[in-house]
């Protein structure tokens, strides 16, 4: 009987302890989440793609014509970025000549441009003031990409990899045009000043002996066009 009583107490003791000795219950569930942040560069031209200069008075030849806000560009970027500009040929393309004298080979550099966005922090030459736009060879591009920080003209950033986008001058920081109008919206003024005779004195490439010795040092009256390329690239 004593054994039975001891066993009974043992069972009660084990029962009580057993309830106390449960491990803390738990359960877990998981979500596996992946995030793909794609690199995006959007360049939008909000003005007409064509800018016309028509010189039909002596005054216009002498004073030149300036097209303010001729081109407006907006940049949306999720990466640090640069933007450069160049003429897609050496010379203006003559569609029609109105006379037989004068030089039909007008260098791209007779077109002057000025940007509303300050890129003076960049090491590359910019467009803080009216500046001749470089032709294809002078811009020193290989496969459309800049090769140095001197030849290519940058509207934003410069040649070389940024270490501090928006500060070190080598790239502009990611962002949208709507939220960053002072750095991501460009208003480009364009100017042509032929002079009389039409030697385009502001051009960094003179018409004298251009492209061959003995060529007329002034422009032939005619209808010309030039293609200007704005290139937005990831800072590399």
């Amino acid at each position, binding site marked *: 009987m004593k054994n*039975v009583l001891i*066993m*009974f107490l043992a*069972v009660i003791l*084990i*029962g009580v302890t*057993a*309830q106390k000795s*449960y491990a*803390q*219950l*738990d*359960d*877990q*569930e*998981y*979500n*596996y*989440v*992946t*995030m*793909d*942040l*794609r*690199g*995006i560069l*959007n360049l939008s031209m909000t003005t007409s793609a064509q800018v016309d200069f028509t010189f039909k008075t002596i005054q216009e030849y002498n004073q030149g014509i300036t097209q303010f806000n001729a081109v407006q560009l907006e940049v*949306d*970027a*999720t*990466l*640090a970025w640069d933007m450069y500009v160049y003429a897609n040929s050496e010379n203006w393309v003559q569609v029609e000549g109105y006379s037989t004298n004068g030089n039909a080979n007008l260098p791209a550099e007779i077109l002057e441009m000025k940007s509303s966005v300050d890129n003076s922090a960049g090491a590359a030459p910019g467009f803080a003031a009216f500046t001749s736009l470089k032709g294809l060879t002078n811009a020193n591009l290989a496969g459309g990409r800049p090769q140095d920080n001197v030849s290519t003209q940058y509207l934003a950033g410069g040649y070389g*990899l*940024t270490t501090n*986008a928006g500060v070190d001058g080598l*790239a502009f*920081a*990611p*962002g*949208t045009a709507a*939220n960053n109008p002072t750095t991501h919206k460009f208003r480009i003024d364009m100017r042509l000043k032929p002079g009389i005779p039409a030697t385009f004195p502001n051009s960094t490439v003179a018409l004298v002996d251009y492209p061959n010795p003995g060529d007329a040092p002034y422009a032939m009256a005619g209808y010309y066009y030039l293609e200007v390329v704005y290139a937005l690239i*990831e*800072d590399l």
Partner: protein
Amino acid sequence: MKLYINSFFIFLLFWSLGSNAQTVSFELKSSPNIVFDFNTVQEYENGIIYMNAATLNINTTESFDLYVGATTTAVNEWNVINTYSSGGIVPPVSLLQLQFRNASSTSNVSGFFPLQDILTPTYIIGSAISPEPDILCPLQGTSAAGDYLTNPNCYKFNVDLKVVPGFDYQSGQYELRIDYVIIQDI
């Protein structure tokens, strides 16, 4: 006779051990893999929201705590699968925001909140202090025993996920794991 008595006590012993079935668990949950794919500037700016990314059905016979946190290789940073650019920084796990919803709004945290590492989790129900007094359904912070079939308004959570990256982070592919943990409050 002694054999019968011993058998009875052995039965009593097993009964005493097995008669308290306790559960604290998720049931019939849906927790798919989630992919946030940002390929427009608008998505970067405004973000992407996944409603009902996970459903947590709770069945518990005990008081419970519920918490959530991220598991990653480097604490508080998304795991990098690959990168598309050299600029920017690796996003923190707090870039991912969560929202726990049910009909009685029993979550301790209302609205979206940033995810934190599992080492410093966010308590949806209860807190790190244990044990705590039971809070009964349908009050905020309901932590008493119950189940989603009887009271889905308190024991069923729909989880929404949101990411608004902005423009500070390095382009690339990232991943992390969200851990939802329900634990007995003792």
